């Protein structure tokens, strides 16, 4: 818990900085794994990820940022060639 002295507080509650990212990847129980061989680089997974944990690299290669992926499974469900599988995590 943040203990701030009264003097350090601004005159009104105003958020002035971005929160450092929280590792929401810890939430998941299954994780998406992209099969590079099957992937047709359509970008559907990237488009539909609600947490933007699918990243597009320069060569249109798609990777998962596992630190933030919550394991919802939308990418696997929407992939038109079923190149993503949801793998159980312990």
């Amino acid at each position, binding site marked *: 818990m*943040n203990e701030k002295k009264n003097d350090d507080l601004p005159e009104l*509650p*105003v*958020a*002035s*900085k*971005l*929160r450092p*990212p*929280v*590792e*929401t990847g810890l*939430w*998941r129980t299954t994780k998406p794994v992209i099969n590079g061989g099957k992937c047709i680089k359509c970008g559907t997974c990237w*488009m*539909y990820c*609600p*947490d*933007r*944990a699918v*990243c*597009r690299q320069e060569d249109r290669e798609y990777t998962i*940022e596992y*630190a*933030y992926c*919550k*394991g*919802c*499974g*939308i990418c*696997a*469900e*929407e992939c038109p060639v079923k190149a993503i599988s*949801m793998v159980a995590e312990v």
Partner: protein
Amino acid sequence: MRDDLVAAGGPLCPGCGAALALQYALNTLGKKTVLLTTPGCACMGTLTFDLQTLVRVPQIFTLFENPAAPATGVKAGLDRSGLEMNVLCFVGDGGTVDLGLGGVTGAAERGDPVIYICYDNEAYMNTGIQRSGATPYGAWTTTTPVGERMKGKGRFSKDMPMIMASSGAAYVATASVAYIDDYVEKIRRAEEVTIRNEGMAYIHVQAPCPTGWRFDTSETIKLARLAVKTGIWQLYEIYKGKRLLSWKPKERVPVSEYLKAQGRFRHLTDGQIDVIQSHVDEVWRRIDETL
């Protein structure tokens, strides 16, 4: 990680439709946007409780029941100082259809050039899945529960896009998170309308909620698509007095496919499903007539 206007590691549910709607709204409009949020799901994705923000745009967290009015004030102030910025209200269905109805339609009637996106998860989700004026007929919610005497919500929802169109909004559109390109295009048109000072732009985007609608988190997009394909969710724009359909299904999928895929409709009797199907048929009959 995408370096965009929404910070990484937000607290919204896995599979949240509103999260998708928010990220495209902000990233399409860009950083010169003042974002107005209200208590609800989306604000959990834009603010924390310890003086830190989750979005890289100036933001005002306003009272639940009236987000459109401060937007009006902000726009007037920005105009006065010569600052060219978008003013975006990103509000849930509860705050728009129930609580904020007077304020939102008032802003439409006044022609305040603000962009108002209502993300419709069809209930007050953040407080625990209570019904709103946008909750569909038959849906289970904690305040329209299912038991011997009650079988979910007893009446259909308010037709908010039409209310906005009748209140003088310059541009009205419906959208779905399953059709992102269409949604983004509509956001761009909304922005143009407000830049040209034609009046208020209103977008009503359906944001399926796995937590409240009771379906697997992976099916958000699938259900949003089904909603459109059954005709339950119509995609259209209303501009300069004309309605333009964004898409007309050649043959509508029976509503039961959409309803049976969600826990909140599990209790529906065949009779109730028929009522819903007739309602959808009637809506489309009227659309066909006016076109």
